[in-house]
């Protein structure tokens, strides 16, 4: 599959922007300037690759809380992210009601999700059903961690999608850990993709650190879904390079040696090396991208820190659709 030079650069830029945003969030947390962060570090290639395989703004997405890079690729800006980290007014996902990284972007068909895992998968099945009932050629991608495939909700969603051949892509971001629990405590199979066997849909495992492999795998699944050939389960295999969240300490359950070993397969490194080899990126362009990212993020932090908090009255609505206030 041919991916143009411009598109490759755009992919790398989105991964880089997400990575630098993510790192800044960790720094802000350690400085006591934000209360919480949940990280996508290690997931960037899978998420950006998937986003680029969709028709963004046309297709639908039911994401989960580790999808910062996917959201960046869909237009979630550094200002948006910083506002949400700080719970400031104008925060676009929830008006400061949800914790950071609980995404929602109506204009990009990204539906609001919660924290209990796999709940969003059932919504994706429903969206897929609605697309099919409307006889449209849209698809819906839902993402989840491998730990979430233990949930009945995930099973029910996949079962629905398979029965009705719905245009749903289930993208399992297998980062080897569900907080502290490694794969063997979560499932008896070696790969989450194997779970597709008993449910009647194709299941493919992909190197989730390779953005091109991810793009191609998701694109193939999108093509099937868009042409009425049903759902696909994609397992993107990568490594969660940070603790689960800013409230976690992964030294309690995995060795530093293990983490260091996996840093050799950092998707940023994998992507950059590949694009340097083909001449898509070079030292100069990489430096420019770094400067651009730093400037944008610096500005976003300042913007969000100066932004006001929501008025407390905003806590009281909108409980019901009648109470929605626009603007």
């Amino acid at each position, binding site marked *: 599959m041919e991916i143009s030079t411009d598109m490759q650069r755009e992919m790398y830029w989105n991964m880089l922007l997400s990575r630098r945003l993510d790192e800044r969030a960790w720094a802000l947390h350690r400085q006591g300037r934000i209360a919480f962060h949940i990280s996508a570090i290690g997931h960037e290639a899978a998420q950006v690759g998937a986003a680029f395989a969709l028709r963004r703004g046309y297709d*639908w997405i*039911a994401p989960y809380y580790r999808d910062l890079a996917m959201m960046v690729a869909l237009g979630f800006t550094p200002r948006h992210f910083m506002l949400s980290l700080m719970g400031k007014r104008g925060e676009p*996902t*929830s*008006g400061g*009601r*949800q914790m950071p990284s*609980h995404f*929602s972007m*109506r204009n990009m068909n990204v*539906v*609001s999700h*919660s924290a*209990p895992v796999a*709940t969003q998968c*059932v*919504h*994706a*099945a*429903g*969206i*897929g*059903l*609605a*697309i099919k*009932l*409307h006889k449209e050629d849209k698809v819906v991608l839902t993402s989840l961690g491998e730990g979430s495939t233990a949930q*009945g*909700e995930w099973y*029910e*969603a996949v*079962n*629905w999608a398979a*029965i009705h051949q719905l245009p749903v892509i289930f993208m399992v971001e297998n980062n080897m850990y569900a907080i502290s629990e490694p794969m063997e405590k979560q499932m008896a199979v070696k790969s989450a993709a194997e779970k597709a066997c008993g449910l009647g849909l194709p299941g493919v495992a992909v190197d989730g650190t390779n953005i091109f492999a991810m793009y191609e795998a998701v694109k193939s699944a999108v093509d099937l879904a868009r042409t009425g050939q049903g759902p696909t389960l994609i397992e993107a295999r990568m490594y969660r390079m940070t603790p689960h969240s800013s409230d976690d300490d992964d030294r309690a359950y995995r060795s530093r040696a293990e983490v260091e070993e996996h840093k050799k397969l950092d998707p940023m490194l994998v992507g950059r090396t590949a694009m340097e080899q083909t001449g898509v990126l070079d030292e100069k362009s990489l430096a420019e991208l770094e400067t651009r990212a730093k400037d944008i993020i610096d500005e976003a932090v300042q913007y969000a820190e100066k932004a006001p908090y929501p008025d407390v009255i905003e806590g009281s*609505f*909108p*409980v*019901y*659709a*009648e*109470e*929605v*206030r*626009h603007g």
Partner: protein
Amino acid sequence: MAEITLIDALRQAMDEELARDDQVFIMGEDVGVRGGVFRATMGLYEKYGPQRVIDTPLAELSIAGVGIGAALYGMRPICEIQFGDFIYPAINQIVSEAAKMCYRSNGEWTVPLVIRAPYGGGIGGGLYHSQSVEAFFTHVPGLKVVIPSNPYDAKGLLKSAVRDNNPILFFEPKKGYRLIRGEVPEGEYTVPIGPANISRPGTDVSVFTYGMMHYYALQAAEQVAAEGISAEVVDLRTLYPVDRATILASVRKTGKALIVHEDNLTGGYGAEVAATIASDAFPDLDAPVRRLCGPDVPAVPFSHPLQDWFMLDPEKIAGAIRSLARY
């Protein structure tokens, strides 16, 4: 005007809404070819086809969750949970997702969804085909909880529910499906969600009730009228949000309040009505607020005498009215 049964009224409502709006569809276990185990959807599959009346897998969680997804897409699903007793697997989706969607997305997303479920005992259904489950949901902001007591309201409220932009739990007194008959006009009408209804005006005692117990309360009021006791019967109809104004106006007139529901006493819906009265109508009370409710046992037992012991009936309600009137 034609006199029809409660279940015929419900079917008419669904039939008319399916015809009116092509975004409306029905899904649930056995709702299609079989027409529902209670025949609530009888004939609709034949009339509207398998795309509008969808037989689902036996998995209540995804009946609710897939409905939520389709609602997010812009459709108006009517989901049937076969018995209220089976709704618990769906609570995660109803409480964590549907109820919170509007608030958590600051109104970006709303969930126009109706979940219908038959509730209540007295039909030989034992522990798992007899439960009253409303109190689990009347605690949840973001949901609306509706329980009709007669065919006119059942049709008008269900049509309003389908057109409402919020998630609605619509519990139907299954014992009354074919027992409760009433006049329903030809042609279009709706009954608004929210207001309670004073179904029998009176001056001595206010009886606050809903659903099947409302049917019995009217009979009880008739019994005590012959003895010179004037009971005002208030059909709450919409349990959540609470129509506090109608409750308070009634008790301010009569000075005495009896709350009747089939669900067990402790933590039941009656506690909210009692607290409302105690808080806001205390100076108007001439007697303690009383509750006549199901006993605090896990659910309705099967054996006939045991079931009769559990269930309220017109005689038990009449006894409670007399006792309060004498106070």
